[in-house]
């Protein structure tokens, strides 16, 4: 029998209590994993947004609480486009509207001539024709969901469009959305003469960060975002989600630690005489300490495994919500699982401290006399 085997036998003895504790901790771990992977997915979506259309960075309204609320006027856009250090710009107006069963369908308003500048992967059909007002290009996921093909019509936010092309993009949100003529989207969204953001490609050989800084210097109302780390300048959502993630992790640690502490205190109390026997046959205080921390760690590692599995399942489940499924793909990065493990280990250690100290304070005779 190994020392680990001894520890596991103790946990198995109290099956119901062990599993209830594991369940309690694993709920916290589930939240950490699910939220972490969703936030990671959102960041990945943001990164894809920045890299879209072979651009070097985006320019949006400074300080916008959410990128979709950003408004860059066509005059500001023209000023950026006219710069000597800029090779090309593409203005895009994001409009979220109902389409089919998805109330959060993203329609991107783009000028037809700008679409020609973008290296789109067209699976079927063609680009929107210059001057057209009711043509639309769908992403492959959107075409599938709306069950629409080239030549057919679709209704986006109570307006009927003719599908002229199907395209495959690198990002989930583009694949799940559509391109429509900029003027039409501006009119429908009641945002005349503005775009949400400008995709900027700098002249060859120039440093994109320097150009981005120069644009910000020239127009303090604009923010140029070249990296995901700067994304919070134009969208507070990710910052809030990140903060929420940390807060929930801290909460999971607190609640989990109390649960583990309760279990371990009960366990130590019930096994006081047993601890006395172990001390009587020569177990050192250090080994008793290792036994209690080991039990606590074993509980929390089982909970980490269960919670991680549930967290992955939960993050897959939220994809069935159309608004989420059309915007992101959860990112199961190493840091999400490391954070879950970290939470489990911290819960185990914090939860074991008091019971361990309580056990260590007992003299062998005190423990042996316990009934």
């Amino acid at each position: 029998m190994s020392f680990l085997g001894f520890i596991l036998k103790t946990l198995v003895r109290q099956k119901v209590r062990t599993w209830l504790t594991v369940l309690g901790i694993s709920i916290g771990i589930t939240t950490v994993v699910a939220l972490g992977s969703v936030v990671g997915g959102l960041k990945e979506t943001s990164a894809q947004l920045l890299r879209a259309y072979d651009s070097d960075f985006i320019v949006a309204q400074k300080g916008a609480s959410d990128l979709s609320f950003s408004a860059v006027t066509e005059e500001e856009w023209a000023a950026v486009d006219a710069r000597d250090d800029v090779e090309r710009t593409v203005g895009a107006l994001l409009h979220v509207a109902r389409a089919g069963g998805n109330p959060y369908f993203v329609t991107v308003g783009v000028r037809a001539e700008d679409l020609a500048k973008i290296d789109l992967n067209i699976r079927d059909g063609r680009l929107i024709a210059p001057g057209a007002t009711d043509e639309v290009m769908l992403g492959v996921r959107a075409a599938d969901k709306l069950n629409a093909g080239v030549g057919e019509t679709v209704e986006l936010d109570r307006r009927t469009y003719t599908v002229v092309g199907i395209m495959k993009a690198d990002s989930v949100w583009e694949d799940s959305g559509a391109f429509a003529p900029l003027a039409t989207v501006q009119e429908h969204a009641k945002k005349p003469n503005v775009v949400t953001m400008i995709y900027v490609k700098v002249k060859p050989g120039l440093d994109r960060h320097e150009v981005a800084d120069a644009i910000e210097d020239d127009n303090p109302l604009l923010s140029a975002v070249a990296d995901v780390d700067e994304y919070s300048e134009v969208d507070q959502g990710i910052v809030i989600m990140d903060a929420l993630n940390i807060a929930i992790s801290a909460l999971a640690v607190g609640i989990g630690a109390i649960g583990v502490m309760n279990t371990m205190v009960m366990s130590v109390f019930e096994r006081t005489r047993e601890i006395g026997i172990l001390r009587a046959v020569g177990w050192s205080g250090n080994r008793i300490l290792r036994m209690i921390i080991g039990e606590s760690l074993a509980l929390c590692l089982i909970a980490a495994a269960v919670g991680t599995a549930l967290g992955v399942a939960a993050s897959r489940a939220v994809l069935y919500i159309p608004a989420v499924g059309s915007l992101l793909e959860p990112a199961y990065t190493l840091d999400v699982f490391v954070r879950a493990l970290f939470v489990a280990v911290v819960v185990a250690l914090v939860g074991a401290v008091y019971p361990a100290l309580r056990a260590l304070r007992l003299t062998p005779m005190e423990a042996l006399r316990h009934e």
Partner: protein
Amino acid sequence: MSSEPIIEISGVVKTFEKGVIAALRGADLSVRAGEWVAIVGPSGCGKSTLLHLIAALDVPDCGTVRVKDHVLETKKNLSHFRARDVGLIFQLHNLLPTLTAAENVQVPMFEAGMSSRERSRRAQELLALVGLDGKEKQHPAELSGGERQRVAIARALANEPPILLADEPTGSLDSEAGRHVLDLLARLRDERGLTIVMVTHDADVAARADRIIRMLDGRVVGDETLRAAPAAASGSAH
């Protein structure tokens, strides 16, 4: 028989409840290696307290307890002493219910730095020694009272201590099972040269020892040698 005392107790006082209850009031005792000593006396005379002090489960208020070369009241690492130098047998077997007989015997060995394989092999040998061959995988609940006590004896021998300390080892057994346990202790003493200190209130049980120490009101009041102890086995495993 070795003339050197392996246990020497001198002027030991032990009180409880902040000095209100005096369990030992200046007890003296000397036990030679290889002796089987029975400590007898009425309830509350301090015999179990004396045994607990020898086992380093408790410390005296004053006086000296020396076991082998260890002066216990000043010794720092008492758990190491308990693991290596004494084996304890309780009235109630005090086995861990979730562990098998073999696993119970292995428990003290964790402190002896043995490998898992070595622990397993040694537990099997010890169970065979106490006549429980084939019962290695039985849990305490599946064993008779006498068998449980024999597992406890095997556990006490786990780290090959030179001294066995038994607190009413037959107290919870019927006479037949009790006799078997005493026969086993006698055999261990004879074959392994173990020193045995046994607390009992039963005169018949005490009569199996070489020497009877009588206690009253926390003091040793009588010391009767029944028979000469056999020579301690020079090749014993300690």
